[in-house]
């Protein structure tokens, strides 16, 4: 083929026949290529786990406001007696405001149940329907048992998304979302790589037992290591972490 006759494409003219086949092949190839990688990319996604919203639930129990609002169940058709629930509001909102003044009180709660393995959370309904103080004489909050100081590795998650409000609700791609939840007042949990005394999830607290959100935001969603005092508050393991010891595991 002389050079004059070699196919040459000009946008505004008809395509030379030789090139037409080549371009047809490219077009088909592009479509098949994109469809193929779409399939592979989608079919190899990681399992977000079994956490999910699992319907409405009610419980009566003792409210603990610090470090984050939780409920120690004393009576419920939906939850085991003695188990503990993380309490959250709708969306990325905590219920600190509603729980204030009810620390240690007997309350009735109702809302949407979020469950993943041992971790259970309840997204409270609005107003009294969601959280109401009950009249009761003397109640004793569950005893606190100290398990000593530990060095633990794991990931800090927001308790609500991790429990199943989002799938997946952990990891780096989800970090900003988790931070936003924590800033909004959702309880932070440490999901430990190895169980400690049979427990995998720890509600995080500051060294003084109060909230610790501001000190952990840079370490959310990452594999980290930290040290702190592990305590059992009834059915909830609480980790009073020492923020100085937080470090990312490369």
């Amino acid at each position, binding site marked *: 083929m002389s050079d004059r006759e070699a196919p040459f494409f000009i946008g*505004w003219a008809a395509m030379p026949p030789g090139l037409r086949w080549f371009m047809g092949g490219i077009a088909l190839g592009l479509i098949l290529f994109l469809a193929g990688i*779409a399939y*592979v990319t989608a079919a190899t996604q990681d399992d977000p786990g079994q956490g999910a919203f699992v319907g409405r639930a009610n419980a009566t129990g003792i409210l603990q406001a610090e470090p984050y609002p939780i409920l120690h169940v004393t009576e419920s058709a939906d939850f085991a007696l003695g188990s503990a629930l993380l309490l959250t509001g709708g969306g*990325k909102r905590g219920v600190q405001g509603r729980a204030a003044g009810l620390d240690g009180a007997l309350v009735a709660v109702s809302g949407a149940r979020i469950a993943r393995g041992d971790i259970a959370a309840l997204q409270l309904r609005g107003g009294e329907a969601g959280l109401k103080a009950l009249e009761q004489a003397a109640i004793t909050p569950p005893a606190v048992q100290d398990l000593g100081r530990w060095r633990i590795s794991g990931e800090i998650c927001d308790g609500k998304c991790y429990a199943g409000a989002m799938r997946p609700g952990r990891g780096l791609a989800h970090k900003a979302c988790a931070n936003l939840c924590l800033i909004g007042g959702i309880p932070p949990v440490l999901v430990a790589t190895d169980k400690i005394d049979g427990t995998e999830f720890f509600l995080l607290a500051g060294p003084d037992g109060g909230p610790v959100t501001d000190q952990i935001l840079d370490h959310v969603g990452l594999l980290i290591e930290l040290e702190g005092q592990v305590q059992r508050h009834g059915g909830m393991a609480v980790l009073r972490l020492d923020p100085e010891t937080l470090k990312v595991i490369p």
Partner: protein
Amino acid sequence: MSDRYIPVQWNANKWLYDGVLLIACAAYILVFLRLGAPAADLTRPVDGAILRMRAFGSCAFFMLSVILCIGPLARLDRRFLPLLYNRRHFGVITALVALTHAVYVLNWYYAFSPTDPMVALLGANTSYGQILGFPFETLGIVALLILAVLAATSHDFWLSFLGPPLWKALHLLIYLAYGCVVAHVALGYLQDSKNPAFALLFGLSALAVAGLHLAAWAKAPRKSRGSGEWIAVAAPHEIADGRAKILPMPDGKRAAVFRDGDRIGALSNACAHQNGPLGEGRVIDGCVTCPWHGFQYRLEDGCSPPPFTEKVPTYNLRLRDGVIEIATKPNAPGTPATPLQIAEAAHV
């Protein structure tokens, strides 16, 4: 070409090109959501919104990779040149796919919160000091903004408004955008995904883009062969009929020396439209035709035939001892420079 601006000058090839792109894009999203995702081995399905942000996000990444491969591919093999013709539409569609990804992210990860989504987008994660946990969303925002600016200025109106050199420089930002996208994915989704399949596809795509650019760069002539007033080009018959020889000039620009039968003429290698490589085009009916979008220039004066008004610089030529020599200084755009007449015997 330049006689007037209408929103988009459609022709059959553009319709076909865009049609194929839209089909490819729709195929990606549908296969991802309808076939791929259900085939994944999951205890419970991934949230619909997260699935869609993954589908559109990965689609935009792969499309951008393909776009960036077109340029070097066309340099290495001329049959790919038609893909360049409408590459801008490819870019615009990719920008829209990326925007869809961003909207899903904003309406899911940054919604349901007492904080305003835009404030949250920039303020929820501020760990700029670390690599793991870096707010990779910011990199995505930078890339999306660049894609948006490039899509908005992709029309020929902006090309003539800004002038080809500035327009082309602006559109080189696509490489910055690609770099940001690669980092955005590498610091985000890739860190989470335990399955190596996507990581592999991602790495291969980025490597293909880099490798093809290196290969095309290695092929391009770079060093000027002289610095006097005239430089030797070649013997007339060494230039194929209807084709050009591209020559790096001492001033850093390039000249294209064309043969059209027994006439030899030289123009600047940069098309007045988008700086396309004229020397990789052909002489058709006495006019040098740009390989990118088909703008034409007369060999004898570098002017587009009427009614068009584009001009490119010409170069004076002379024949010394059977070798063509080219003047190192270009003539002003549109200056007539009589083509050399060579003996019929020189034809091959």
